[in-house]
């Protein structure tokens, strides 16, 4: 029996209408609240990236799911159907093939270009290695903070303020910060979630990541690389504070850590500290 139902037109109409509605909901309602939030320029950039990715993938996912659902419902076996009867064989459709290739190729190429541009724009908060392609802000006004990972705590050095080291991370608001991430032992990963910063901490490597802060806020810091028995406990918190508050905090920290500052190894981008192996 010939089936004259316009299945393709029905499915296409269903897909177009539901895509418009659901994509609008995703882009304008769900996406703005997605992690990591809008605390920094890089975090906001990641929200935009996630919005674009989710906005483009919504119609694609809908197309697949609708087609599956439509087939399961419309082409299901009904009582009285011959269970051995199969539909007509599909021998190819050059028009569908051409459009499939055009649409998917365009989508993939667009996303590749979009991702590359977003990465080059401001580093996207990721570790760029010792020679970053994307240098953010004016180097003269950039705050440098060295993140030193060790089993199992992050410590921080401020080379522009005498190289003091502290176990607390504070950075000023409305400032470009250049994180120099390294490790003294195994591989760790510095993940300042709400800042939108994530950079691997490798021993002997200077991994640079940028962030442009906005208003004061608190943020969490986690190690994102399995690094030993206390990896799950390797977390702390940090603060973005007003510039005046940052200045007084630096003064207070320099004073508090003055007994040990002169004992520290002179500031370098990487360290290979002794002892490498215990003598005993």
């Amino acid at each position, binding site marked *: 029996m010939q089936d004259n139902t316009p299945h393709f037109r029905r499915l296409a109409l269903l897909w177009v209408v539901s895509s418009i509605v659901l994509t609008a909901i995703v882009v304008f309602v769900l996406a703005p609240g997605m992690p990591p939030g809008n605390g920094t320029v890089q975090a906001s950039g990641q929200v935009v990236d996630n919005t674009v990715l989710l906005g483009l993938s919504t119609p694609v996912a809908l197309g697949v799911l609708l087609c599956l659902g439509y087939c399961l419902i419309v082409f299901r076996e009904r009582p009285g159907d011959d269970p051995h009867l199969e539909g007509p064989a599909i021998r190819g459709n050059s028009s569908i093939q051409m459009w499939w290739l055009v649409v998917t190729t365009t989508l993939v190429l667009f996303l590749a270009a979009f991702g590359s541009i977003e990465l080059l724009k401001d580093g996207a908060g990721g570790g760029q290695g010792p020679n970053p392609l994307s240098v953010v802000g004016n180097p003269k006004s950039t705050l440098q903070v060295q993140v030193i990972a060790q089993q199992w705590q992050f410590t921080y050095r401020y080379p522009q303020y005498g190289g003091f080291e502290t176990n607390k991370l504070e950075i000023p608001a409305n400032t470009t910060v250049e994180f120099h991430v390294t490790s003294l032992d195994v591989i760790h990963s510095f993940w300042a979630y709400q800042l939108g910063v994530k950079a691997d901490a490798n021993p002997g490597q200077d991994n640079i990541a940028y962030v442009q802060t906005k208003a004061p806020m608190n943020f969490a810091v986690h190690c994102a690389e399995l690094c030993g028995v206390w990896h799950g406990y390797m977390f702390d918190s940090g603060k973005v504070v007003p510039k005046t508050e940052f200045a007084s905090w630096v003064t207070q920290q320099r004073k508090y850590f003055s007994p*040990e500052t002169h004992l520290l190894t002179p500031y370098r981008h990487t360290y290979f500290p002794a*002892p490498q192996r215990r003598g005993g």
Partner: protein
Amino acid sequence: MKQRALAVTIGLTAVVVVIGLYIGLYLTAQPGSATASPSAGGAVQLYLATVPAAATNDPHPTWVSYYVTNSQRQDWQHKTTFVVPANTTVHVTLFQYDSATGLRNEFFSQAIGTTGGGFTLNGKAVRAIPPANASHVFAIPALGVSVPLAGVAGNAKNPCSNAPCTGADYNTITFSFRTGAKGLFRWQCFVPCGAGYVQGFGGPMQTVGYMDGFIKVV
């Protein structure tokens, strides 16, 4: 055929039970805990010791370790979970029997987070020690507490070999810190003191019950 199936079933059941017991015992095995004793003014007191090697009957008699002891350095117990009350000052007296290894990060050569900002080393008030003199560190990162422990001289007359170290040379370190709300926190050493392991960070540094443990604030 039936007998064979029965034998296979019994064998498989036995294997599953043995594996289950092994996993269960492994997961429930907890190093012992020690409760801090009351001290003057509502504070509590902990007496700890660090030794170059655990007792000879320990499963790892060559591993460096912390122990719980008393003010007379007797009654040695291999426990690394310390129970202390919330919102209380904790006085710690630490008898340090091991020799120096040195810090990989000199940052930990200064005491932080202690009451008054320092500690005493053999009765003398100090805030930092030379990084190369550190034998161990007692640190509770989540509470912001860290104290370096100076090692005994390499040419000490009576070095300790294995716990208990009664009669051996030692350094006495005292410090205090204040607890906050209830919670379970880890403490650890920051000196790479795991002898025989890459960079000294294996073995006792990676095993709860030797150079790390818990602070249970109740």
